[in-house]
């Protein structure tokens, strides 16, 4: 008796139909499992980690937010090479509010989140019409320019930066806030992308001319996506400012633009969860490799290349495909 391998998609009907899913415990578990397990896992990790690794987890969460913020923007057809702009603007708003006005971090962070969103959106509004690489170039240059401006004008502490800022409390508090924020952002934006609003953003990404010819002002929607994305990035910057108790020119460094993009490449674009997963691989990895000195960057780069070449669709797409499909052998009568 010969055998043939078949690939079957699990419960497409179920997943496309929320109400139907509620009729079966098995299906509910099937839907809940990939959401609940990572959430629980992250909080468990935070609970058992040493202080050092808890700090690493906090940083990882912030890079995850930057990567998600990149993906939000990309979903609406804007490719950015400058998440550092969002990060840096948020960082400086929080830092200066805390230093010059003595405002508590619990207030500076929300203010910097909204304020950073508004500032970055206004700054990029004039170039919203640029497409592809032209938009990307502007976003890359802006943070580097601001860095030079701070250096030249010596504002906000100039090259020294501002130190001695307040913290949110101990590292456990920071971890809790960071982890909760990451999940809230991830799940709410994933939800958003599945609504008609998300559909519109995807439409702009696919074919902006067709969206315009449907009578939609695409610049209005692109500006909104830009605000959402930059607010998330600004939150990360503001948060890290208080975690480091310092804000200075390095917040506009290329790291904050490049690592999110690498995370997206590893994790898989367009899912928001992929970029987050990518960050949770790359950032701790870079910590693990710290002992290796000069070779660190080389090994890091090799891993990055292997990941992106081996799984060009991204790890998240791969995992979710495997989860939603199964293969089985069936007997074939000859």
């Amino acid at each position, binding site marked *: 008796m010969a055998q043939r391998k078949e690939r079957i998609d699990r419960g497409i009907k179920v997943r496309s139909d929320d109400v139907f899913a509620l009729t079966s415990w098995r299906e509910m578990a099937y839907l809940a499992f990939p959401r609940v397990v990572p959430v629980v896992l992250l909080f468990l990790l935070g609970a058992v980690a040493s202080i050092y690794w808890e700090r690493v987890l906090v940083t990882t969460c912030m890079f995850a937010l930057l990567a998600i913020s990149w993906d939000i923007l990309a979903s609406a057809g804007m490719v950015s090479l400058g998440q550092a702009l969002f990060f840096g603007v948020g960082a400086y708003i929080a830092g200066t509010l805390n230093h010059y006005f003595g405002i508590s971090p619990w207030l500076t962070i929300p203010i910097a989140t909204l304020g950073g969103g508004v500032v970055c959106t206004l700054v990029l509004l004039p170039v919203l019409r640029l497409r592809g690489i032209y938009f990307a170039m502007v976003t890359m240059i802006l943070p580097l320019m601001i860095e030079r401006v701070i250096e030249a004008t010596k504002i906000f502490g100039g090259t020294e930066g501002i130190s001695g800022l307040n913290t949110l409390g101990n590292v456990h508090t920071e971890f809790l806030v960071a982890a909760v924020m990451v999940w809230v952002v991830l799940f709410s934006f994933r939800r958003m992308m599945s609504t008609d609003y998300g*559909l519109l953003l*995807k*439409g702009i990404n*696919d074919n902006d001319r*067709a969206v*315009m010819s*449907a*009578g*939609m002002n695409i610049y209005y929607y692109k500006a909104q996506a830009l605000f959402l994305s930059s607010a998330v990035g600004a939150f990360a910057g503001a948060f890290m400012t208080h975690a480091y108790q310092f804000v200075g020119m390095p917040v506009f460094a290329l790291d904050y633009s490049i690592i999110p993009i690498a995370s997206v490449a590893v994790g898989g674009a367009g899912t928001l969860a992929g970029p987050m997963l990518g960050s949770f691989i790359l950032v701790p990895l870079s910590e693990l490799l710290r002992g290796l000195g000069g070779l660190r960057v080389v090994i890091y780069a090799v891993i990055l290349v292997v990941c992106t070449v081996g799984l060009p669709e991204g790890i998240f797409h791969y995992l979710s495909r495997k989860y939603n499909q199964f293969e089985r052998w069936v007997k074939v009568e000859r």
Partner: protein
Amino acid sequence: MSEKTILQAQDLSKNFGGVKAVDGVSFSLRRNEVLGVIGPNGSGKTTLANLITGFVKPSRGKVIFDGKNITGMAPYKVADLGIARSFQMVKPFYQLPAFKNLNVALLSPRLRRLSGGRFGDRDAMAKDLLEEVGFERDSWVITHQAASLPHGYLKRLELAKCMALQPEIIVLDELFSGLSLAEVASMVPVIEKLVAQGKTLVMIEHRLKELFRIADRVIVLNFGQKIAEGVPAEVMEDPQVRGAYLGSEAEE
């Protein structure tokens, strides 16, 4: 402008660098009329569509829609006023299922206005529209990602996207190109139904035989200029048109 005129182009011109893509074209479109636009490749047909729908700003001339000057207006505003268009290069929203492609137009401010502030069941409306242009209602095709649709369906989807906007005028840029005879034959009744519903159509076409059956009037472009205008049969008798299409021996 007479009562029945819905769209008027006056001396429309567009230069791309040195190329006069459209050169001093004037015409007027009556309400509920089907106007054919024909001409050889590169004669400026697509550019003319872009000029009317705001995707290209004219170097000279005016576009007047319903008594309102819409020259140089942003494309989304033109669409909002009620001029829909299809694109010669079909490019669906690849990531979305076929029927969700229509939801973008169904979400537009124009649709909200027309439906009195309520959107209604967009998915059902989208599926109805797809059925109208010839998708089989309960087949997998309408829920499948648009990226994987065959060309014939993509063309139908283009038409459905235009219809979703409930426009006054539909500008169709080579809707029939790349379709089989049978596919064209099945789409002609859809177009005829639109006309019966009172829509005004501008059809840019290379498939003259099918076009001439639908069009009330035809204008012919050559090197950006309008060289003839009239009912289909007359136009093809015009020596200049025959020259442009068939080549002439006299012109050395």
